[in-house]
């Protein structure tokens, strides 16, 4: 049974300096509020893992939270590049960030291997590319057919953090819409936090909904609107204008820092007040 906590208590008890942390959510249900709480609590030296380090990781990297980044696509979806991510890699600002990059298929298989408690996943991929020489993959031969395939190592983050629409009081979680790799991330990690739009007395099962039982989840924290400017299908809408705003605003280091101070550091999460 998952424990119910406030978001600030949850981050305090689950995330320590130096941890490897996966905040997942593939274009949907991105746990912005939890990421902001990590920034507010001043965590440092994190290994941040995420298939699509979009605006949330741009913010965390720009605030100096990350020592290392493991990812497969670092862009502002539909808009362009990520300026803080670029500044960290190109110029080491505000600090150098070590990177390990994969393809989406590679990252997805790495999470799935972690969830299955396997040391590796086997796939077709990476061959012929320059990526193979710059990341952690290895050729492997199928013992049955002799086919040459690619092995990718399992991902086993210290902490997984995802957002979902709702949970009941036992911490059973239901999410629907684009499911990304949230379930895999939770099952692959040592500890996990799910932030939810609302806590309900009883989950009403939805067609296509994914239920994650409370007994595989560490902590559930209520965070209404916690995926904004991403969205929680059926509850909040994606704020496409914010993604365009971010592209302009975040180009400048000072403007970025000012915006983060005003909108993240100086603003406590509602449920924590």
């Amino acid at each position, binding site marked *: 049974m998952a424990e119910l906590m406030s978001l600030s208590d949850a981050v305090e008890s689950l995330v320590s300096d130096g941890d490897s942390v996966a905040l997942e959510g593939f274009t*949907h249900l991105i746990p912005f509020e939890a990421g902001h709480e990590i920034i507010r609590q001043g965590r440092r030296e994190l290994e941040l893992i995420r298939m699509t380090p979009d605006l949330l990781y741009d913010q965390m990297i720009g605030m100096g939270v990350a020592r290392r980044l493991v990812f497969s696509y670092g862009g502002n979806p539909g808009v362009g590049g990520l300026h803080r991510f670029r500044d960290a890699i190109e110029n080491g600002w505000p600090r150098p960030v070590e990177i390990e990059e994969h*393809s989406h*298929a590679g990252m997805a298989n790495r999470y*799935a291997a972690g969830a299955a408690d396997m040391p590796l996943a086997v*796939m077709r991929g990476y061959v012929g*590319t320059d990526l193979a020489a710059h990341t952690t993959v290895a050729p492997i031969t199928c013992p049955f057919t002799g086919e040459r395939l690619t092995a990718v190592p399992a991902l086993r983050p210290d902490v997984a953090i995802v957002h979902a629409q709702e949970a009941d009081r036992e911490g059973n979680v239901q999410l629907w819409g684009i*499911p990304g790799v949230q379930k895999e991330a939770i099952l692959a990690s040592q500890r996990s936090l799910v932030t939810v739009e609302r806590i309900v007395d009883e989950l009403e099962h939805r067609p*296509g909904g994914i239920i994650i039982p409370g007994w595989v989840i560490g902590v559930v924290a209520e965070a209404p609107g916690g995926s904004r400017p991403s969205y929680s299908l059926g509850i909040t809408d*994606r704020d*496409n204008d914010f993604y365009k705003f971010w592209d302009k605003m975040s180009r400048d280091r000072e403007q970025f820092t000012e915006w983060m101070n005003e909108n993240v550091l100086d603003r406590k999460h509602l449920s924590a007040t």
Partner: protein
Amino acid sequence: MSVETQDKNSQEATAGEIQTIVAARRLRDTRTVFIGVGRPSTAAILARMVHNPDLVLVYESGTIGAKPFHIPLSIGDGELAETADSVVSVPEMFNYWIGPGRIDVAFLGAAQIDKHANLNSTVIGDYDHPKTRLPGAGGAPEIAASCGEVIVIAPHAKRTFVEKLDFCTTVGHGDGPGARERLGFRGEGPTAVITDLGVLEPDPDTKELVLTQIHPGVDVDEVKEKTGWDLKVSADLHTTEPATAEELAALRELLDR
């Protein structure tokens, strides 16, 4: 000609419009198309409106059979999930749908493309000390390896069409004939590169991209000038059929939604 200087109310398509329309026409007989956002998405939605109403749109976010009324800003827009026939996880998308070659056509973009249609979306400059850090691979390498065929959509510029990639993110035709077979790829690889000036297609024997089609009003010399290698021109070079009134009206209506 450029998108900016042309009158949007004109009966003639702008360079950007013709690029989108040519991409949409390619989907006339396609069952399933894999698309990212931007021009590929616009082209695929346009194809459903005008050329192929049964076309199945597949987005990387896991939405299979999405029927968006609006052009999505991101591949994860809610409308895609709400209108999809099926919504699947990322591991399922790559392992069950893309990997086994169930998707007929994939649209891809890139910051750099070479004469064998290999693509770079990782870095400009040196990998460890990049001049420009780009977003990275995303799904492109496995999509290009496995989908039935790949159509690249890119703006025609010398910095994009380069002699040598700074980084090979995605293999198109590798170093030429036989490369894909040696690597064990199941798809046919890039079959066309659609730009705002024309269409390049791989020569069947050398797998080198040659100019096969030129958009109305474009000069061959301009295309050669904006290509970073010595671009060969097909003996069968033809001019793109101008946008029909129906295509143009549908595209403009779509962009206005």
